[in-house]
């Protein structure tokens, strides 16, 4: 993975000093609350419901074992012994003390980590395919580009006070694993007819109150122009994006207002002034950064492994885990493993200090000292020898990290919700817990098959409910928690936004509603049809009818 040189380190150290000074001036009363707010946000520090929340950046989800140990250390030393993985490959601490956050940042900087621009109206943490460099369907490794763009975005003086937050993701494979179309800019690595590498550029996606899927603004951009073109897009947005209403301030609203063609004209005119200019990426710079992502020293392994086949055949639990949580790898004899953070009874995405240490240990032992975060709030070990999978599975099981539920209903994406977040309208964790308990039987889950269930505690949609096959959204009605249910959303190449099935539900009803949706599917499905396929084939009507017919008598009216 990327290793800092003296320039990276100096910039980060200067950031630590800057933020320490700002915190001191805030505590001394020299900086007002309003003046301090964007400064602390751009360093990842929120003021939350119970305590400050500190959001740490994990660029494109890559973590070295020493960084995992540092996160565990922070959880133990400055927090209550755990932290939370988000859908944006950030790590959140929920109980730090305000005045100790600069110390936490300094600790992070000692292992080449930070909380740069994890909040605020600036360019946020950049995400990429979690299986970059190992996926069989990869066009090219996105990580060198993601790192080059990260550097360009970091402390970028022109784009720190945009109309609203700005998120960029890279897709690099045939199967889109990053929800590319819900990003402000989506960069899709492609080759043109001449075989040259570049990007298909998408713009104007986003979830939130007005979910919109990004549209193509350019079918092919040479990789060398990645910075100049992104700069042109963001400059047009910075100049003309709305600033009068925070709900209308994302770039998606500007793109919709102008129309993608008029927006493209603005961008192309701006780009003409900087295209091929000094920010053009040189082959030398790409080679320098790419060297950091060279494949690890794999050993030569046979394509066939009879001993492994015997392990699979001889242990049903292992075989189930292998089917759900292990992915094929480019290198013969290797596999990628997803460690599930979705064990029933634990908050989705939460990791204890002990688990941080244990994951670091597993990474060191089985995967060249590296781990990767997934936007589904799990952790992957990307480079595991097949002949060590059984051993790894046993170790992961001891640690509660081997629940074989990847892609299944209990692999819930869930934001921290009203239990922690000041923005939330409703709690999301108890809903996730209800659903995990109701569907705890793994045979039942496997029978239901692939199903993405996503929960957000408010319109900001951190839990990606719009793209869940089943989505649950917490809403506030007269200071009561209610939940809107959507079906038909999906991520991946054919990303679709779910549709609300009707009036919202009380918290205790949600799990029954989910079960009714599932039962409807089980009765109506064709062979080999996933829940989402049945919804797309039949529409939402049969699901709605079932849910509301069974609920009519006790429903309160007017909770739409």
């Amino acid at each position, binding site marked *: 993975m990327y290793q800092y040189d003296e320039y990276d380190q100096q910039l980060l150290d200067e950031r630590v000093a800057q933020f320490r000074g700002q915190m001191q001036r805030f505590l001394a009363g020299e900086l007002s609350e309003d003046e301090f707010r964007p400064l602390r946000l751009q360093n990842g520090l929120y003021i939350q419901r119970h305590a400050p929340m500190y959001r740490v950046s994990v660029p494109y989800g890559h973590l070295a074992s020493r960084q995992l140990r540092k996160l565990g250390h922070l959880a133990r030393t400055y927090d209550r012994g755990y932290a939370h993985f988000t859908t944006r490959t950030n790590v959140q601490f929920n109980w730090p003390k305000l005045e100790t956050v600069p110390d936490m940042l300094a600790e992070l900087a000692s292992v080449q980590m930070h909380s740069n621009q994890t909040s605020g109206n600036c360019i946020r943490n950049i995400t990429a395919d979690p299986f970059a460099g190992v996926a069989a369907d990869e066009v090219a490794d996105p990580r060198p580009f993601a790192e080059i763009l990260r550097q360009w975005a970091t402390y970028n003086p*022109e784009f720190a*006070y945009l109309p609203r937050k700005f998120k960029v993701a890279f897709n690099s494979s045939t199967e889109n694993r990053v929800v590319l179309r819900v990003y402000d800019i989506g960069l899709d690595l492609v080759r043109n007819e001449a075989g040259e590498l570049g990007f298909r550029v998408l713009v104007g996606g986003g979830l939130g109150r007005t979910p919109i899927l990004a549209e193509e603004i350019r079918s092919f951009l040479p990789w060398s122009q990645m910075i100049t073109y992104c700069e042109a897009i963001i400059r047009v947005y910075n*100049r003309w994006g709305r600033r009068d209403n925070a709900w209308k301030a994302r770039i998606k609203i500007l793109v919709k207002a102008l129309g993608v063609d008029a927006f493209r004209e603005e961008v192309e005119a701006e780009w003409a002034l900087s295209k091929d200019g000094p920010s053009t990426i040189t082959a030398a*710079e790409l080679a320098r950064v790419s060297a950091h992502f060279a494949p690890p020293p794999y050993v030569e392994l046979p394509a066939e492994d009879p001993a492994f086949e015997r392990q699979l055949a001889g242990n049903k639990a292992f075989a189930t885990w292998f089917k759900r949580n292990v992915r094929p790898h480019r290198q013969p004899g290797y596999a990628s493993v997803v460690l599930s953070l979705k064990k029933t009874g634990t908050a989705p995405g939460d990791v204890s200090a002990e688990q941080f240490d244990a994951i670091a240990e597993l990474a060191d032992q089985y995967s060249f000292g590296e781990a990767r975060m997934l936007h589904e709030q799990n952790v992957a070990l990307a480079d595991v020898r097949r002949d060590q999978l059984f051993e790894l599975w046993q170790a992961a099981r001891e640690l509660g990290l081997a629940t074989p539920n990847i892609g299944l209903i209990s692999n819930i994406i869930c934001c921290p919700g009203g239990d922690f977040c000041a923005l939330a309208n409703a709690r999301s964790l108890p809903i996730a817990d209800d659903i995990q308990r109701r569907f705890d039987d793994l045979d039942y889950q496997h029978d239901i098959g692939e199903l993405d269930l996503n929960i957000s505690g408010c319109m900001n949609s951190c839990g990606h409910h719009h793209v869940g096959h089943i989505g649950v959204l917490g809403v506030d009605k007269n200071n009561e928690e209610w939940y809107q249910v959507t079906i038909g959303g999906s991520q991946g190449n054919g990303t679709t936004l779910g549709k609300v099935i009707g009036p919202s539900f009380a918290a205790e009803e949600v799990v029954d509603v989910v079960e009714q949706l599932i039962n409807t599917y089980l009765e109506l499905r064709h062979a080999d049809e996933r829940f989402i396929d049945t919804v797309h084939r039949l529409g939402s009507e049969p699901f709605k009818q079932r849910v509301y017919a069974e609920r009519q008598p006790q429903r309160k009216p007017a909770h739409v």
Partner: protein
Amino acid sequence: MCEHIDLIKNGRLLRETRALVVIAENEDPANIAVPAGPVLVPLAVWQARRPELLARARNGELGVWLAAGEDPDALGEDLASLQLIALDFPKFTDGRSYSAATRLRLHHGYRGELRAIGQVLRDQFNYLNRCGFDALQPPVGRYDHEQLQAAVASIVDFTLPYQRSVADPLPLFRRVERGALQAGELS
């Protein structure tokens, strides 16, 4: 009559006297009073009274200020005559003037004084400077002299930024020889 204003110009603390003309509601830019001596006038006044004000602009006595969201392209060929342009920050979180400054410097080649006015606070000095503002005018009374002197230091919060900007015509990867990987670092 105009009070002194504190100004940080090219990293040095100065005091100067310069009137700021603001168009009140119902006032006509064509008839508004433009005081003698150093002054900043709004874009609308400049556009309405250009022939009358041109000589004062050429000798630097008169500058033009643009509201956030006003397009510097509107100055057209006058950019060659103007010695002083100011860009307003109605709120310090309104970032439009960072892009306006960048465009003025990099696209239009403007070389005169570029002054940040309005909610200009020390925690933005570094970014303002890098976007081409060589003069920073914080709100009158916001900082005492001692605080301002300390604030001057924050102009160089980041000494070797990654990206190209007005202040750094080349991105870091073209400015310096960046470190190659040390042997063993990838293991």
